[in-house]
């Protein structure tokens, strides 16, 4: 009988972590639906970027207030979770505050004291965050794409934090032994009085302890369904981000092959493919659905924090156009989730559902409003590249569907015929020299 709590704890832990592992597997599978792209060059710069941008939050602080508050929650959350280690050992082995046995009281007190202070800071910050979202109504949290789940998601995370931090403080306040130790209860001693004294204290303490660890496991599993996935994915996402100049768009290798063939006067367009070279299906240009994007773009979509910094800098969005780079990322993720569920439901293969990222999620009106200015890429605190997705989709529209706006077709026709976007004769290129 005396081992029942230990067994219960072990089961809770296994279920919580196991379910999380299952979701991680699904996530990786979905990301791998994307095309291959090689981002293994320049490892040292990649590590540096990850350290600076994900761990060091260097792009977050470009907006000092939000950045500072975010760092408090981030640091607080991570450090306080060191406490989870003690909880797990206690839970599995039936000990109580096992670290008091190995650490000197003063060190233990210092650690827990710091956690308590952080917990209060996190609580305050979370309240400010909540006010920003719900009372001050910051414009970037009110866009069309932030209705429904994304809005609730943002708030749920904040409530989670409040509950977890409160449980942590209550757990400390009602731990008579810990209070008696008198070291590290820097905050909890002030609320200990609220709970009186006697037998019931122990019950409250145990309840808070169990709820705390259960809450953490629930939170862990909530991640997959939330923009909060970024606390994990920000790391690989910044590591694999594009390192080339932002203005450099990829050159399609398949197009290069065709163009070379066309320009080579010796090439025989009707020649049979060389031995060993399979004819295969002609490659699809650009992207109309998530499988046409590369895996980094798909990872981007799961990493998106829905912060809207990109959209708030987007010239198209600022002037009332439909385009919102944040929505591009959220749409990509939502469609990818839909495709993933489709695969799950059909024993591992995707069955055409008559839908696609293009049109069902992202409209051509959005795609054509982009100026390719890179403001969104620059603004993103976790190095997401919405522009690359927009460009892939434009490529599909133009090269697979010939569906460019009429004026652009005229412009491209001019380039084809006269080598300039306007209908002027190429032989007149130098006329300016003699004009006044």
């Amino acid at each position, binding site marked *: 009988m005396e081992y029942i709590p230990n067994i219960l704890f072990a089961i809770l832990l296994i279920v919580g972590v196991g379910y999380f592992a299952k979701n991680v597997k699904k996530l990786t599978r979905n990301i791998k639906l994307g095309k291959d792209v090689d981002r293994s060059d320049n490892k040292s710069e990649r590590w540096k970027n990850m350290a600076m941008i994900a761990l060091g939050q260097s792009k977050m602080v470009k907006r000092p207030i939000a950045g500072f508050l975010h760092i408090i929650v981030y640091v607080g959350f991570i450090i306080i979770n060191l406490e989870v280690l003690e909880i797990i050992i206690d839970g599995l082995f039936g000990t109580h505050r096992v670290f008091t046995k190995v650490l000197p009281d003063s060190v233990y007190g210092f650690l827990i004291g710091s956690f308590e202070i952080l917990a209060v800071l996190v609580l305050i910050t979370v309240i400010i965050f909540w006010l920003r979202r719900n009372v001050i109504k910051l414009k970037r949290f009110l866009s069309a794409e932030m209705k429904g789940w994304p809005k609730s998601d943002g708030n749920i995370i904040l409530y989670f934090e409040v509950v977890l931090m409160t449980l942590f403080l209550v757990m400390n306040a009602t731990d008579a032994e810990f209070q008696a130790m008198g070291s590290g209860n820097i905050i909890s001693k002030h609320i200990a009085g609220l709970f009186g004294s006697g037998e019931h204290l122990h019950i409250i303490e145990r309840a808070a302890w169990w709820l705390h660890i259960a809450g953490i496991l629930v939170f862990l599993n909530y991640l997959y369904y939330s923009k909060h996935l970024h606390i994990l994915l920000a790391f690989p996402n910044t590591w694999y981000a594009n390192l080339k100049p932002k*203005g450099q768009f990829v050159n399609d290798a398949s197009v290069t092959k065709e163009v070379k063939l066309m320009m080579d006067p010796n090439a025989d367009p009707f020649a049979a493919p060389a031995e060993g070279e399979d004819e295969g299906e002609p490659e699809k240009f650009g992207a109309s659905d998530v499988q046409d994007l590369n895996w980094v773009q798909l990872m981007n979509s799961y990493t998106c924090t829905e912060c809207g910094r990109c959209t708030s800098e987007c*010239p198209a969005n600022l002037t009332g156009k439909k385009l919102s780079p944040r929505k591009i990322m959220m749409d990509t993720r939502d469609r990818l989730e839909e495709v993933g569920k489709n695969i799950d439901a059909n024993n591992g293969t995707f069955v055409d559902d008559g839908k696609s990222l293009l049109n069902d999620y992202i409209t051509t009106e959005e795609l054509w409003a982009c100026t390719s200015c*890179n*403001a969104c890429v620059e603004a993103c605190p976790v190095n997401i590249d919405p522009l690359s997705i927009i460009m892939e989709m434009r490529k599909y529209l133009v090269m697979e569907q010939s569906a460019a706006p009429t004026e652009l077709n005229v412009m491209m026709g001019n380039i084809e015929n006269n080598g300039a976007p*306007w209908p002027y004769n190429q032989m007149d290129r*130098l*006329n300016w*020299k003699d004009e006044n």
Partner: protein
Amino acid sequence: MKVPTMAEYMAEGKQPEILFWVGSAGSYDDRAKKITKAFVKILNKANVDFAVLGPEESSTGDVAKRAGNEFLFQMQAMMNIEVLNGYEIKRIVTCDPHSFNCIKNEYPSLGGKYEVVHHTQFIKELIDSGRLQNVGDTYKGKRITFHDPCYLGRANEVYDAPRDVLSVLNANLTEMKRHKATALCCGAGGAQMFKEPEKGDKDINVLRTEDALETNPEIIATGCPYCNTMMTDGVKYKEKEDSIIVQDIAELIANAQNL
């Protein structure tokens, strides 16, 4: 105006110091041609040995690529690369940040490897090396604000060269709230120059012009022919064309030198 072509250089068996890539706007657009000429005047004044391709130049394909036509882009790129490689070009200067970005970043993997500089970088070189001296006091104390072109700034992180060049004018340089990495686009990029904007509540160039107007400028300086058009239109829309002029950095330098 002395504007030698590569063909002429070739005929004499000579190689210029630098190829001036004029670009489509610089060749055909009336406003942009003025920028081209101002830059040529600077090149001649500084005795730079340069040449243009003239009728052998063709669209870089940049705008086709941004419009989604990768095929047309690569066709244009390969044709241009054939010409450039044929002349054994090593170094290219251009007044158009779009050509700059495209040739510098997107031509190499197609076989066109050159050193490419923007005209503001080149003018800075001329000033630093003393080939361009005593720029003149025409703009002394004038309030100038510089609009960063996306394809020079964010796209290639060239923020200082244009500002360094402007600083020799002894003008009163003021920055817009959004500048350098956070500069707002003029609205022309991504092939928008060639189409009507999507439905919205404002044009992007008007919003950017409002950014500029907040600094109460006498001159809005640009470094891109498309930005120039956009800002000029924006200033007209705001009915400020009598008090504010929009000029390329090359024009400001040429004017200051009385060229």
